[in-house]
């Protein structure tokens, strides 16, 4: 059923009785051409683009819990294309372009809102680094503007310009940056994939990956064995466990990233603001809650919850940057499990097992990658060749030292995140 304002109107007149299911709830078949492990944003978009771009039909997405139950449903929903290292730059640029057409592509309002993202800087050195970034964005064909302190003040008059511990020197303004409604992205891709014949199978945990003679042959699940010609591991947050089923060790450590949302407030923050010095970023959802977060809790964890030191650090950063939010009350907090790769950049690649693919290592930034990640993994799986914008996301780059993409410059080794 196609969604539209007119349909909402006619359904409203008839008691909303006619809305049909957004996706089927099929039982798994015994065999598929392609099995995707993980029904999060990346897995769902991979299935969608395999069907849409490559005309493939016989596909299953296997989800341990419910669709979109991982990080795609628990993040701060920032969508941007402001990376500066080659490899990342072209990929996120491509992703943002896909975002810009996602509503009509999916016939689902994901509420992608390009309200503008401002990265603040607090020293000459940081300004230089952001200038380099901004020039990389321009060179990639994306938008960037360098604001001085007064330029920032015009847009964000409520920041504390007088007494913040790290005074605001200016900001890098990315007008096409913004946010989206996270659940809707998962649901939109799920509905789109389902409409193209993909079987979305919930409550189906993969318990084993079958390999024979160096080639993948299928998976074992809690709902029985499923044969498959190709299998993709798209399970950020559990990547290491899934890969271990295929005997692989990944360059991944799992960490907690907390985020917070306040009670609903009338509009007060109209942009996405990133305060790198305090590891703090914030925006306001359409529903009115301030959505914000900070840095990792900094310890390996699968608990999907964090601890107070980072909670307090994030709140203190908010108070030093914009004390006007002090009386907003935090309503909910949550912790997502981040696939941290050594250099902070992702992996979309084949593995040493024929027919087995891996998509992992999204660090803090997987949400905005959802469309392009699926697009590129689908391309790789369908054609056997990496998509040009994801060609540098190789699994072996750490071993060889080739094309390491350490945007933060903190070190391409796990303990220096």
């Amino acid at each position: 059923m196609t969604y539209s304002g007119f349909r909402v109107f006619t359904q409203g007149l008839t008691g909303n009785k006619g809305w049909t299911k957004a996706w089927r709830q099929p039982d798994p078949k015994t065999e598929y051409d392609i099995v995707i492990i993980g029904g999060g944003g990346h897995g769902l978009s991979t299935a969608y683009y395999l069907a849409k771009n490559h005309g493939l039909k016989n596909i299953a997405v296997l989800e341990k819990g419910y669709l979109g139950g991982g990080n795609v449903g628990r993040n701060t929903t920032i969508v941007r294309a402001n990376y500066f290292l080659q490899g990342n730059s072209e990929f996120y640029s491509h992703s943002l372009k896909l975002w810009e057409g996602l509503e009509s592509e999916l016939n689902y309002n994901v509420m992608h809102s390009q309200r503008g993202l401002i990265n603040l800087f607090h020293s000459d050195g940081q300004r230089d680094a952001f200038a380099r970034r901004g020039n990389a964005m321009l060179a990639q064909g994306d938008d960037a503007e360098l604001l001085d302190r007064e330029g920032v003040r015009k847009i964000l008059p409520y920041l504390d310009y007088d007494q913040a511990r790290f005074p605001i020197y200016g900001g890098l303004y990315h007008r096409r940056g913004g946010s989206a409604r996270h659940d809707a992205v998962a649901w939109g891709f799920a509905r789109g994939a389902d409409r193209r014949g993909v079987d979305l199978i919930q409550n189906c945990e993969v318990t084993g990956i079958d390999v024979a003679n160096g080639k993948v042959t299928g998976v074992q699940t809690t709902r029985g064995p499923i044969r498959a010609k190709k299998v993709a591991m798209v399970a950020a947050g559990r990547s290491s466990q899934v890969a271990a089923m295929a005997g692989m060790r990944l360059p991944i450590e799992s960490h907690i990233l907390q985020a917070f949302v306040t009670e609903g407030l009338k509009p007060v923050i109209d942009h996405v603001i990133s305060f790198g010095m305090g590891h703090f970023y914030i925006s306001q959802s359409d529903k009115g809650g301030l959505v914000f977060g900070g840095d990792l809790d900094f310890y390996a964890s699968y608990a999907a919850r964090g601890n107070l030191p980072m909670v307090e650090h994030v709140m203190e950063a908010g108070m030093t940057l914009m004390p006007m939010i002090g009386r907003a009350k935090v309503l909910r907090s949550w912790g997502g499990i981040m696939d941290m790769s050594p250099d902070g950049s992702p992996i979309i690649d084949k593995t040493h097992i024929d027919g087995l693919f891996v998509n992992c290592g999204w660090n803090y930034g997987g949400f905005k990658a959802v469309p392009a990640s699926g697009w590129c993994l689908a391309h790789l799986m369908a054609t056997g060749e990496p998509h040009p914008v994801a060609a540098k996301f190789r699994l072996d780059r750490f071993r060889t030292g080739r094309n390491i993409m350490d945007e933060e410059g903190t070190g391409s080794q796990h303990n220096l995140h």
Partner: protein
Amino acid sequence: MTQSHRIPGKGLMIDRTRPVRFTFDGKGYEGFAGDSVASALLANGERLIGRSFKYHRPRGVMAAGSEDPNSLIEVHENGQQTPNVRGTMQEIFEGLDARSQNHVGPLNFDLMAVNDLLAPFFSAGFYYKTFMWPRAFWEKLYEPAIRRAAGLGRLSGKHDMGLYEKAFAFCDLLVIGAGPAGLMAALTAARAGAEVILADEDRRMGGRLLADQPEVDGQNGADWAASVVAELAAMPNVTLMTRTTVTGVYDDGTFGALERVSLHRAPGEAPRECFWRIHAKRALLTAGALERPIAHPDNDRPGVMLASGLVGQMGKFGVNPGKVVIFSNNDSGLHTARSLTAQGIEIAAYVDPRPLPVTEEFPVYAEAEVVGTRGRLGLKDVSIRHKGGTSVIAARTLALSGGWNPTMHLACHLNGRPEWSPELAAFVAKPGMVPGMSVSGSAAGFMSTRAALLDGHQKAAAALIELGLSVPEISVPESEDRPWAISPLWAVDAGGRAWLDFANDVTTKDVKLAAQEGYSSVEHMKRYTTQGMAPDQGKTSNVSALAVLAEATGKGIPATGTTTYRPPFIPVSIASMGAGGRGEGFAPQRLLTSDAKTRAMKAPMIEAGLWYRPSYFPRAGETDWRTAADREVLTVREHVGVCDVSTLGKIDVQGADAARFLDFVYTNTMSTLKPGRVRYGLMLREDGMVMDDGTCARVAEDHFVVTTTTSGAGQVMRHMDFVHQAFCADWDVRMISVTEAWAQFAIAGPKAKAVLATLGEMPSLPFMGCADVTIGGVKGRLFRISFSGEEGYEVAVPTRFGTALFDHLVATAEGMEGCAYGMEALNALRVEKGFITHAEIHGRVTADDVGLGKMVSAKKDCIGKAASQRPGLFEDREQLVGLMPVNQGETLSAGAHLYNEKDPAQREFNQGYVTSVAPSPTMGCWLGLGFLKNGRARYGEVIRLDDGLRGRKVLVEVCNPVFFDPEGGRMRD
């Protein structure tokens, strides 16, 4: 008439001798000291207190505590305002300015209430299906309209300058909630000598003993509670924390708690709130239970309350509800009807879906349901469907009791999942969900007062045994021990809209629609309908909503399960958890000994890590930084300059194996350094990239002083500690930071030696030499090193003498046509010399990239060596080069990219980027350092610096990064 709805003689919490005046929406009201805004308004006959989120329906007070979904108000003071305050929690004080929120026009005529008429089109998730066309309308039209309509209260937009604090506390046993179980538990543990913290949300302890006031130990339960509290207050091992809500459970017995310190008073000196971090060896969750409403058509009008809310408002504040209808599916509703009758309240009807073979003093409608209400701004009557048909009964208050949900949220904060209890028709905690914490009293499903008292005692006794303490003899008082039964009824099927989530306007229809459309897991339903996401966090609606979902999907409640309970239990202000962060408090400030003098010289200060350093020292007539910096640079080159360099990290390394150790952490060899000499050192991370650089001075055979960059000091110390402790802990080497112990100043320029001579007899040092010296009778250290390219010395004295030495050096230099110089000049001087800083060693470069590949000694292992030799790190790399404008007058900018002259500024053509620039008065043009593909082979080539961000395109010549005095003759003798 003022306080017309007050029952004479009732109301434990109010002091009738102390009237308090406050305003609500600008209208003056009188209440009594101890009233909440909600109780005071109710006592004045006001039932309408706010508007709902989506449909803007009129809403009144439902509860008496923090779970109230409706009574959200703004509290204003001195131009500042606090949104989304629960009227049930805000105590009134003289002059309190409370206002309703989320309406356009007056509260009783909200223009946004038109949404209510459009409700058929605003079904759950409708916005996912529309507003998609045309694309450009989303940000311009649809989204702004949605945003304006959404949200509840308003922030002022002004800095919150209120005082907040955070604090730590420790105890053996934390008791959360001071109702019957909590009081009994605290008493038991306190008498055993345990260190006890008893925390309660209310300002007076007693919990529901203060509301329905059952008899305990032969006296009014509230009096019994007061006597227990008095005993506890007198014990040194007990801390009583009132107005304190435990908000979250974290690992290893850590609890977050919010204390509302002074919100009940007009603003003053005391903190508004305090956020506590409590570490408890054991904890007892005795937070009681929260009543839930029953979803029936139009169950959201002002005047519809939870039965417990009504009992609380009556018992604590003496609120007179007028004529009451009670709709209940469990025995506590019936008890309430009897209790109210006994207090003289007229029960117009008691409605219960169960067959009830009882005869009461009030009309009982058994096997009956409420199917509707009327009254636009306040309840007028209630429609009851019963065996004999439908009756309409006039009432001012409708009290709902749909059963009780134990308040076990905190027990679920460590990912534990509660289990369904069919007897209670509620979720209860399982043992062990939080290590060291047990749940007791009605929070654990013990519904009678006597059972709660007994359970509190027993659970406390168990905790005492775990703590190794003996359990005291204590008699648990007698109290009511009524049986309790419930027959679940979640929603009345009678058409119309029946509210589950009052705060977010989620009705049973919305939940059913979610199921119909396949959003049938409880998480999907919550997210699709937004149920439970309002300020009340679904406290009164979660269980009912999932029960309605379970019915719609046919899965049953246990299989449907709950959503995840996460902190905080109640909303907590950002300011309280971020207390201390505002303004300068976010990070310590580190001040140089030269700070006061520098500021007196009007130098603008800039941040360098946590330090503050001067940017430049302006002189009369110098209108911009450039003039001052150029002068300072030329002064250093021609005369002499003085600069405070104490921010550099200094680490003292001693021991017989010190040299061996430094060989391991630096790429180059330090063991061959002679005492009295200094060597430049490069340090890699284990991933092969440059981590830091600095100098290494051998002050004695087994004693080195190494320097780090300002920002790298902490990381380098940690790193050296790691290498030492992990790989060579048995070596004779010890390290300690001496950064703070020494004030160190650079003296640079042709007259440096002359300045030095004024300090007394100084040794004549060769370039890269060091020595102990005595300056004015004070021991000091002298290094002959240069970051400027001129003859340079750094002289260090104990920090207490730093101010005096700086004053002397500046005065002396100025007497020789010299000056103090700041960071701008320092930067220009080092760029002229091609010296790198963290602008170049930004974490992604190898030693080879910066032209120091030869410094990685082939003769020994060092940290980072193996990884630095990976093949990919020698292919197609960008290498450090110098950049000079072809046209000397042009300005260079850091952050610009590099392209071949004819190539467009597109990623595919990128050749590199610029890391540092400086105007060089020495060379007469701007200079740049940058990284260029295969750059060392391209000296002499002309390329384009492209800074699209600032609209700058400059042709530059690639050159050796050492622009000035490449032979280094000026630094040496």
